[in-house]
């Protein structure tokens, strides 16, 4: 018994010593690599930025060690990518990224670890390395798990306007949020192609409508308005929300339909839109909605009253004379509350 325990203890001790040596060595190596990368980066930063921006024709010498060179280039181009000003800058970044990184990225996509592959996909998108589009597409079709690697591959393909993506959107079930991530990256032609598709799932339609509201581009407005009477409630609500962002509706009369709706979200968006557009003809309805059974409708109605040209008077009237206690409370809150969002 004692011998067994001693053996086990010895094993624990040995494991611990191995672990300690491994950690110390890898920590030292990590610190050394980081330092040499940071040193090389600071050395080439200014001359290389001058070269990238076209101020200098002479390409500065990069570190001879391949790993350091790749890390320096990634750090350099990441900073550069977030400050790009025009097509020329973009072009030079793409050319440089292709020259130093594309071969390495091809290898990583085939043989790298999960984290390396995901990082590479982030960089491919950031540096708009569209020469790797086919490689990313091939890689995408080999993926089994719907994790970050899967999502980032799709984002890259969306950025490059991959044609097969539209078919994929019609067939696969994605969340609306993720669909919007893809839409934000798609070129204008892909969006027009998508609008022509008739058999799109609800999540894609709501994603499109919501995204169009976000952009505020008038070329998408008819598509949004055409869906405010859609039979699907979610699509109707997204259209109303998008119109609030557009701050526009072709026919203000159609709002009464929503202000009287049995669906509280429609009453809320109706009230919000009436306020945004300062439609005084709905003031009486809004006053009634200030006493709605739903908190959000009450909030939207009082907020809308506040936005009217004589908003302060209306709100004071609601705060003091509304028959409903909740309406009075809400109006009082809106009188003192400064509406604001975080930044």
């Amino acid at each position, binding site marked *: 018994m004692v011998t067994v325990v001693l053996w086990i203890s010895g094993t624990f001790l040995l494991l611990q010593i191995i672990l300690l040596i491994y950690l110390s060595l890898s920590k030292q190596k990590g610190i050394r690599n980081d330092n040499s990368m940071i040193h090389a980066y600071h050395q080439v930063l200014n001359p290389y930025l001058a070269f990238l921006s076209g101020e200098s024709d002479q390409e500065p010498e990069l570190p001879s060690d391949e790993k350091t060179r790749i890390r320096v280039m990634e750090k350099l181009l990441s900073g550069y990518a977030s400050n790009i000003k025009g097509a020329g800058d973009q072009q030079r970044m793409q050319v440089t990224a292709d020259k130093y990184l594309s071969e390495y990225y091809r290898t990583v996509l085939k043989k790298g670890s999960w984290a390396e592959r995901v*990082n590479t996909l982030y960089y491919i998108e950031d540096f708009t390395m569209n020469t790797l589009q086919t490689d990313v597409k091939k890689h995408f079709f080999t993926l089994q798990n719907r994790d970050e690697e899967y999502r980032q591959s799709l984002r890259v393909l969306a950025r490059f306007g991959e044609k097969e993506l539209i078919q994929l959107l019609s067939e696969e079930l994605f969340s609306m949020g993720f669909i919007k991530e893809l839409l934000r990256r798609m070129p204008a032609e892909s969006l027009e192609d998508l609008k022509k598709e008739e058999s799109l799932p609800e999540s894609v339609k709501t994603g499109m409508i919501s995204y169009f509201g*976000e952009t505020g581009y008038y070329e998408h407005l008819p598509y949004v308005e055409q869906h405010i009477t859609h039979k699907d409630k979610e699509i109707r609500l997204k259209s109303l929300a998008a119109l609030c962002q557009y701050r526009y509706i072709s026919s203000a009369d159609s709002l009464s339909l929503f202000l009287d709706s049995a669906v509280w979200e429609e009453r809320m968006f109706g009230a919000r839109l009436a306020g945004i557009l300062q439609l005084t003809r709905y003031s009486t309805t809004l006053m009634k909605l200030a006493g709605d059974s739903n908190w959000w409708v009450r909030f939207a109605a009082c907020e809308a009253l506040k936005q009217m040209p004589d908003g302060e008077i209306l709100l004071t009237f609601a705060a003091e004379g509304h028959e409903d206690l909740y309406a009075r409370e809400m109006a009082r809150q809106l009188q003192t509350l400064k509406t604001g969002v975080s930044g």
Partner: protein
Amino acid sequence: MEWLSWIVNIAAIMIIIYMASVSLLYIGMFLVAGPRIKKERQLNREAHIEEISMNKDTFPISVLVPAYNEEVGVVSTARSMLALNYPQFEVIIIDDGSSDQTSEKVIAEFRMKEIDLAIRRYFDTQPVERAYQSTLFPHLFLIQKQNGGKADALNAGINFSKYPYFAAIDGDSLLDRDALLKTMKPIIDSNGKVTATGGTVRIANGSRIVRSEVEKVALPKTPIVLMQIIEYFRAFLIGRLGLSRMNMLLIVSGAFGVFEKNRVIKAGGYKVDTVGEDMELIVRMHKSIKDERSDQRIEYIQDPVCWTEAPSTVSSLRSQRRRWQRGLTETLWTHRSMLFNPKYKGIGLFALPYYLFVELLSAIFELTGYIIIVAGLLFAFISWEITFVMFTATVLYGSLISSLAVLLEEWTYHKYPDVKSLLKLFIWSLSEAFWYRPLTVLWRCEGLIAAIRGKGSWGNMQRKGISEEEAA
């Protein structure tokens, strides 16, 4: 005398079997947690959250900061919250009837103005007396209410909040700038399937924190705090990640967690008559999820997102451990019907029994072990040789688990600037079984007794404040 020796022997064998089983369980959880951490080891964390940091669809969050007599740290906590990198959020400080200058400090610092209230009442709480909004930051609010405890303060905060998700944070904690983005990512990626998330809580003592931001990570000089750092690594990186991967996470730290408001409302909010309201809520959320046959999950992320000041004196650590143990006892007692109940699957059959036998009763088993060893040596019914061998095995095993936790921490965060810090952690972990472990075992047993008898409190400790206001 022979019968006594027989009883002691049986007890000793049982304790050895128990300790061996717990050890195997820990190794098992390391094997579950380790690959996940290794997989994400080199992931570019900034790029990973870049998308949601700019995305207009990122769910807005209400950050709830309950505070009771937190005049020392409340302003730096609020500043740390305001500096968070997140598209849309509000910060609500809930002063739970403090007798010090908590509210006055916040009102003066952020130029707050009183606002009228139209609060929705999801839960009954102690009366809310006043609400204020900052004139400098329109998304910063302060509500003053009568004292009702931390859980009651959080419930009042939920009533006041307007966003669909909320983050609950202790008044003395500091959040990493990207904390909300990192903790919300699993919720956003899963399109709401994940209903609550918690991240790793780190001890800030020893690190340099300027203007509510961690500037340099370093180890503290006090051994009692150093041991807690090792303990936190073990608890978070092995225990919680292991359980989370099996969808059996039962604790999202009270120091920082993000929750879907609807799910918390369905579960009934925070329970006000327990000191372990954070764990109790999670168990109730699991119950509500299982009762509804929903496929929602509660997840833990390994990223360090929250910094907290650990107790640096024996008395405050003792009070903290007694409170934790009491909270655990009360939660397990409240939800005893879920224990071994196949209806609750992993939660009923593994997670709750794990917390009962490993986290709660281990204190009793260990204390019995210590008593047997000491008494056995004094009255000579255990040989010195056997005692020495068993003790060596325990020390080495304990430190091996701690070393593995240090390895996981190096894989996830690797922010200690030198090899010396790692060596220091290693060496201190060897000393745990000689002083730190027996002390905490004793306090946990006290907590267990207090749970059977006592009553609740905020369990405050004297804060020194962890943030320097001016850069030196």
